[in-house]
């Protein structure tokens, strides 16, 4: 229990006593706690000054709280926020990345072609220090499923690490922008792309692939931080040997126990192209020395062809970072029928549950439930719906089973109406924040249902077929998006803001009790973390789907930064220029977003706000 793990426990379990320790100077006052660094870094890599002012990885800390202990911008001062600088990325596709702040420099990655910019925070106007163009192959754009986004870079040990759409992981010298190494980890020719932000743990850069709908087999790879050499690969499907399941693997539930389930829970050989990619988030607990991530949905087989659980798709894994060895696994959505990937963020927070402080893993999943698990064992502590669900009727906490509603199973030739949540789930990639001060989660998400009917002729690679016509629309209440404060202990909503459009941005929450998020029509909003009252808002040039961050600049003052630039799966109508008359475009998302072109236009711009 070191560093951030300690910090989180301190702030959740005994907040009142430790109040002072959880303010911005926590790292200094508690000595061994190093909040901004997160976990125990490898020897010699701790080159950052010990303060909480930076933002070295998209999730801020290894626990993925996206919580900043800075307080200069707070519920009283936030109304004075103003733009202090802007920077155009030069690109107009969806901007999902988090700006990264380390050593007085801000690093941003553009969507394809994945240009990295380094901005000097020590000078007025944030002048450009360097830029790096990885020159990805143009063909990668034709492979990516849902806009050519990138979710950001990560800083560690004087280097910037990021992924390109055409499957390269690149390490740059953070000071000069010169490449240190560049490893090709996947192949666009077989449908693989990479959109996720890597995470560096104990000298290893963790990277996963995208492309489940192209017949890709999902994996997570660990690359040596200094050489780029692949240390291990953990596949999501196939025999135990390939999934890195060995004697340490102890799933909590009987349904997840057995030999070679990644092979035997499929009809023969289907696992070889079975999906289970990893394009989302990874967390790390330095005390338990485990990494956590979830896998995507099964593909490209339609559900009735792949009877069985289709392991290990839509599964939460815990693994040892050094070897990749799996320690436990829990399949949230066995035999997925609705595109419920399991790649969402998992927050590692310690929570008092039934009078006991539990080392919890909190996962607001795409299937509509917020799973609270014991992160040492994978035991379910609760699984509460955080919006309207009818594709299932609950999770059995004794067996771990998802109670699937067979009436909502897709069938060719049959119209299935009102499947909730829709294919993007209750929440897609857009990450949640957690404040140890309020004890609440801040969840940006959508409220969408869908109809499915297999009636429209389609044609791909010279092959005609009957496409499943998916149409999405607002769920109960009529709002397509929600920004929600949630108590993970009681499993209940505390307050929520209904947003007309899906909330596809990330969020950040601070010790100043302010939470930030953006809307797809371009508003950047600051809300009171306790009440949900909107305290300040600013209209940016384009819709926001990026991840806001906050940091202390070299001048000692707090700033908030976010990329504006609509796009992504729901915004592809604008960023890609899809045809709004084709309601099944973007896998049916266009139907729910027909008004977006009248509300925003594309454009990629960094906004930095300060007092």
């Amino acid at each position: 229990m070191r560093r951030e793990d300690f910090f989180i426990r301190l702030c959740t379990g005994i907040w009142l006593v430790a109040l002072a320790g959880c303010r911005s100077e926590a790292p200094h006052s508690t000595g061994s706690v190093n909040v901004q660094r997160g976990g125990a870094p490898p020897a010699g890599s701790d080159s950052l000054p010990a303060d909480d002012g930076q933002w070295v990885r998209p999730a801020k800390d290894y626990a993925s709280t996206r919580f900043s202990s800075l307080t200069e911008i707070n519920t009283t001062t936030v109304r004075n926020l103003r733009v202090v600088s802007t920077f155009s990325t030069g690109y107009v596709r969806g901007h999902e990345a988090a700006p990264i702040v380390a050593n007085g420099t801000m690093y941003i990655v553009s969507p394809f072609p994945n240009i990295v910019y380094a901005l000097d925070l020590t000078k007025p106007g944030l002048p450009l220090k360097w830029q790096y163009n990885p020159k990805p192959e143009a063909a990668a754009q034709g492979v990516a499923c849902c806009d050519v986004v990138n979710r950001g870079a990560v800083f560690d040990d004087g280097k910037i690490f990021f992924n390109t759409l055409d499957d390269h992981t690149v390490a740059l010298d953070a000071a000069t922008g010169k490449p240190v190494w560049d490893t090709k980890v996947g192949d666009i020719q077989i449908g693989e792309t990479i959109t996720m932000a890597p995470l560096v743990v104990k000298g290893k850069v963790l990277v996963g692939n995208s492309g489940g709908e192209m017949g890709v087999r999902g994996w997570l790879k660990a690359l040596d931080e200094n050489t780029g050499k692949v240390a291990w690969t953990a596949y999501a499907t196939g025999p135990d040997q390939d999934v890195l399941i060995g004697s340490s693997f102890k799933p909590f539930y009987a349904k997840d126990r057995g030999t070679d389930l990644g092979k035997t829970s499929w009809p023969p050989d289907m696992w070889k192209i079975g999906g289970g990619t990893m394009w989302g988030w990874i967390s790390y607990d330095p005390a338990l020395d485990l990494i956590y991530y979830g896998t995507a949905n099964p593909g490209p087989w339609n559900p009735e062809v792949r009877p069985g659980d289709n392991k290990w798709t839509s599964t939460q894994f815990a693994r040892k970072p050094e070897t990749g060895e799996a320690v436990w696994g829990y399949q949230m959505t066995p035999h997925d029928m609705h595109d419920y990937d399991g790649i969402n963020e998992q927050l590692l927070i310690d929570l008092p549950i039934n009078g006991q402080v539990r080392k919890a893993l909190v996962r607001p999943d795409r299937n509509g439930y917020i799973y609270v698990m014991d992160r040492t064992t994978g035991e379910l502590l609760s699984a509460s719906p955080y919006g309207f669900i009818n594709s299932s009727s609950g999770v059995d906490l004794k067996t771990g089973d998802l109670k699937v509603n067979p009436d909502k199973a897709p069938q060719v030739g049959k119209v299935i109406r009102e499947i909730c949540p829709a294919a993007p789930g209750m929440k897609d990639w857009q990450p949640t924040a957690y404040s140890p001060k309020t004890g609440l989660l801040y969840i940006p998400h959508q409220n969408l249902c869908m109809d499915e009917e297999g009636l429209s002729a389609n044609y791909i690679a010279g092959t005609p077929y009957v496409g499943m016509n998916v149409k999405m629309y607002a769920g109960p209440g009529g709002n397509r998006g929600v920004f929600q404060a949630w108590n993970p202990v009681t499993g209940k909503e505390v307050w929520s803001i209904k947003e007309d459009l899906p909330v596809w941005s990330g969020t950040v929450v601070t010790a100043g009790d302010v939470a930030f998020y953006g809307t797809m029509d371009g508003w950047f909003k600051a809300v009171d973390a306790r009440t949900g009252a909107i305290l300040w808002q600013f209209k940016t040039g384009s819709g926001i789907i990026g991840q806001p961050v906050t940091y202390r600049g070299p001048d000692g003052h707090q700033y908030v930064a976010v990329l504006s630039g609509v796009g992504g799966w729901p915004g592809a109508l604008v960023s890609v220029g899809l045809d709004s008359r084709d309601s099944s475009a973007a896998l049916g998302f266009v139907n729910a977003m027909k008004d977006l072109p009248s509300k925003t236009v594309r454009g990629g711009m960094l906004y930095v706000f300060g007092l």
Partner: protein
Amino acid sequence: MHRTTRPLLYVVIAAGSIGLAMHLARHRAYAAAPLRVCADPNSLPFSNQARAGFENKIASLIGDELNRPVEYTWWAQRRGFVRHTLNAGDCDLVVGTAAGMEMLSTTRPYYKSTYVFVTRRDRALHIRSFDDSLLHRVKIGVQLIGDDFANTPPVHALANRGIVRNVVGFPVYGNYAEQNPEARIIDAVAKGTVDVAIVWGPLAGYFAQRSSVPLDVVPVSPRLDLPYLPFVFDIAMGVRRGDSAFRKQLDEIIVSRKATIDSILRAYGVPLVDTHQETAE
């Protein structure tokens, strides 16, 4: 998949060869705007960069009819193909697409084909129907689309009959680094990796013709699985929505040059389904 347009004619015109001058005399209107075609550079028998596919031949036929030189914008025909090419305004005609597809405006269909069973002739399996009990015992290759919830009709037809454990999938995308990646499923039949493949007709017909091992290509039956799973599809040309004057021109050519189009399709081994025959059945 580099996007390259090739105004070859203009280069040659600059060279001023006599042969070309004669050619131009016959096709005066070649000074007109080029016929800009969107096509996959690596997808025989449909099209390729060497213009050796039947869609390339049909594009040339249309170019001749309209007295316009043919130019290409090359892009792999995957998700995003129409968006990156036709709807980006880089080209004006997609030669092959499913009739009635929503994202573009389609002409009248110019051929109808069917999914087929492909087997080695020496195996003498004689599979003609999805209801053949052999299909429960042999290894079956199918084409996979990877669109959420949807797949090629044979995949659904087999699943409806409980045939899933002996099915091998070949994503239609294949490995694009290889030549004609869609053809791997036919190779698998020839090599004996699968006993039977259920493949879209034009692909099967063309590669079966060229296989070193004799292959049988037999249309599937029934032609429609109820409630709605067709194995026979109308193929049309596609233009941008709203481009109706151009679409009408194409409709006229499809009617007036039907015999030539049919002979091109036959030369490529495309199994053609007769509309009249279908209604009679």
